[in-house]
């Protein structure tokens, strides 16, 4: 018994010691940032610089790699009003879900908010509150095999129909040349968030909107969206393997990087891997903006990326805001772009001389980022996951041929309108 009391006293002494220290000298902050690939190291370097400059200490809490688990963990912490973590790294579609537990950064960001990609700021703004600052960005790209397009004498496709035509032609050529497992186009068709992204790109690039418009009105049941899905359903089994209906990013990359596909839709991370020494297609690949629906449409890639937000339950709110502003600032984003090829969210950086020289890949993404669209997460708020799940479910059924495009989208729109009527977006 005495042992237990002793241990308890030690714990109390240690914890009060820490808090007294904090009050007297400097604060001790915690940031939850991702440990995927190089991200942990980059995060550590960034916070070390801030800590040295301000004399505070910051420690990293590694967030789970799976996005779903990460969100669930954050929600548990925030629902319990836990002050343990001051700064959260969040996905671009989460501000709506987490908004009420996050600090409004509008004032702190001031004019700097306008430096960032407008679509990023839009995703981070919920009910006119800027609840997070953009940290790095991601965007959908069309990867292609340079050598095969050249051999076939075809340009990089600018529309979905041109893509299908070229894919069919090259696929037939490659198969005749002795590669029976060659495919024209691979993408992400598994019923998950990735399919929402892919389908939204087809639809937005055909002038079919973004499921829900900025005012919160359901717009998905329109002819342009229906046609876009009919075109996409036409890919399955002809230029895309049927298995694409269960592909995520990595399955698609597996087919493309082993040299068995002409086109692939994927995120920027694939570039470095596709150009690595052990890649079968090294120096034979290129990337371009995704194709538009028709010749008169503008192509829109879906924006991904990560933001930094301050917990409303942080004991060191002002310091945490300062840390977020430092990490999302211009200098730090430039350093991360050069050291880890993470795409900046500040368009001006794409023209930066150092980035143009040392990370030319990033510089080339600027026009694609500028036309990128955001998923309707800021408007659907806490209902976003439900909207996305209903959407990818309907799209998956159209792609696999169980439902026709028009009735599927009508049913989807009906379900979404009902959802909104029942609870309102993101109650």
């Amino acid at each position, binding site marked *: 018994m005495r042992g237990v009391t002793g241990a308890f006293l030690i714990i109390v002494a240690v914890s009060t010691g820490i808090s007294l220290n904090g009050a007297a000298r400097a604060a001790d902050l915690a940031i939850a940032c991702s440990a995927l690939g190089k991200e942990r190291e980059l995060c550590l370097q960034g916070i070390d610089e801030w800590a040295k400059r301000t004399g505070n200490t910051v420690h990293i809490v590694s967030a789970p790699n799976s996005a779903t688990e990460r969100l669930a963990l954050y929600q548990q912490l925030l629902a319990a009003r836990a002050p343990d973590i001051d700064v959260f790294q969040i996905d671009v579609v989460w501000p709506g879900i987490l908004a009420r537990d996050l600090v409004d950064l509008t004032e702190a960001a001031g004019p700097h908010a306008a430096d960032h990609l407008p679509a990023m700021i839009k995703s981070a703004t919920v009910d006119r509150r800027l609840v997070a600052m953009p940290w790095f960005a991601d965007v959908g790209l069309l990867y292609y095999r340079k050598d095969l397009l050249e051999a076939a004498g075809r340009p990089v496709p600018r529309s979905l129909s041109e893509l299908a035509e070229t894919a069919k032609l090259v696929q037939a050529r490659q198969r005749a040349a002795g590669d029976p497992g060659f495919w024209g186009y691979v993408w992400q068709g598994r019923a998950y968030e990735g399919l929402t992204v892919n389908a939204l790109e087809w639809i937005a690039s055909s002038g079919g909107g973004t499921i829900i418009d900025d005012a919160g009105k359901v717009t998905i049941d329109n002819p342009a969206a229906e046609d876009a899905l009919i075109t996409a359903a036409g890919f399955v089994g002809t230029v895309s393997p049927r298995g694409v209906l269960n592909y995520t990013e990595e399955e698609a990359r597996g087919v493309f990087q082993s040299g068995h596909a002409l086109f692939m839709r994927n995120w920027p991370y694939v570039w470095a891997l596709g150009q690595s020494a052990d890649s079968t297609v090294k120096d034979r690949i290129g990337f371009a903006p995704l194709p538009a629906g028709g010749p008169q449409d503008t192509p829109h890639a879906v924006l991904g990326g990560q933001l930094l937000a301050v917990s409303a339950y942080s004991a060191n709110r002002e310091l945490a805001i300062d840390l977020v502003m430092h990490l999302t600032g211009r200098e730090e984003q430039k350093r991360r772009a050069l050291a880890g090829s993470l795409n900046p969210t500040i368009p001006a950086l794409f023209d930066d001389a150092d980035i143009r020289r040392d990370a030319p890949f990033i510089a080339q993404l600027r026009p694609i980022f500028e036309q990128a669209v955001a998923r309707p997460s800021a408007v659907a708020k806490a209902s976003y996951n*439900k909207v996305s799940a209903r959407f990818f479910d309907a799209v998956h059924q159209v792609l696999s041929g169980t439902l026709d495009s028009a009735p599927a989208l009508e049913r989807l729109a009906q379900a979404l309108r009902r959802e909104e009527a029942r609870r309102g977006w993101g109650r």
Partner: protein
Amino acid sequence: MLVAPALIVLAAIAGWPLARTIWFSFTDAELSDFSHYAFVGFANYLGRFEGDWDGVLADPVWWGALWNTLWFALISVSLETLLGLVFALVLAVRFPGRGMLRAIVLIPWAIPTVVSARMWGWMLNDQFGIVNDLLMRLGVIAEPVAWTADAGTALWAVIIVDVWKTTPFMALLILAALEMLPSDIYEAARLDGVRPLELFMRVTLPLIRPALLVAVAFRSLDALRMFDLIYVLTAGGSDTMTISSYARQQLVDFQEVGLGSAAATLVFLAIALVTVACLTANRVRTAAEETR
């Protein structure tokens, strides 16, 4: 008095969460904010909203998931029982290397489900999978099949993996029953010249029936709760959903603690119903035999 500690432990680890789940199923609680919720009665199960039916029982996805679950449970448990019986009968015969074989048969059961699901996921891959490669070499299929992408083949793929994984468990339970059988009955049958098939149908099967029923009940309950294999192996759309994955989606992905708890309660009720049915069937049959 003596069982009181056991009952308290049971109430704490099983009763309390169950009661809480049932309570939440009558509220509109959400995962993001547990402090505010209101009592909504049966609305999460079935209610009216603007002239339409609403709630889990009015959701076609739920009924699809229930159908998937029942179908999966029926087919997989039947196949596992049949194959398990065959395995057990083979393993009960004395032959050299039997001990070794008994151990080897257990390997699929020893591999964690998520690991074996991943492994099978790659084996069933449409482009690089060994299953397609083998079938194509044998000339069974002309071109690769996307096993896990189509709703039709995906459920079969899940059934195949489940059968592969749990047949050893069935075989083991049945084998244990076979080992307990008295050898003098077989001596007598051999002297009377009973044919092997008849011996199996009239002597072996009735004797191992209680053990077989327990094994089938066990597997059925497991199959009705099916979640992990489906979650890892298939696309995750509504056409391959089970009732457990439906409940998880409501609770975790959609944050609807109320609706999710209602679905979880229904899963619990469905399983309880099957358990009661199994137990009653067993008791009635035993009673009938005793009076005979």
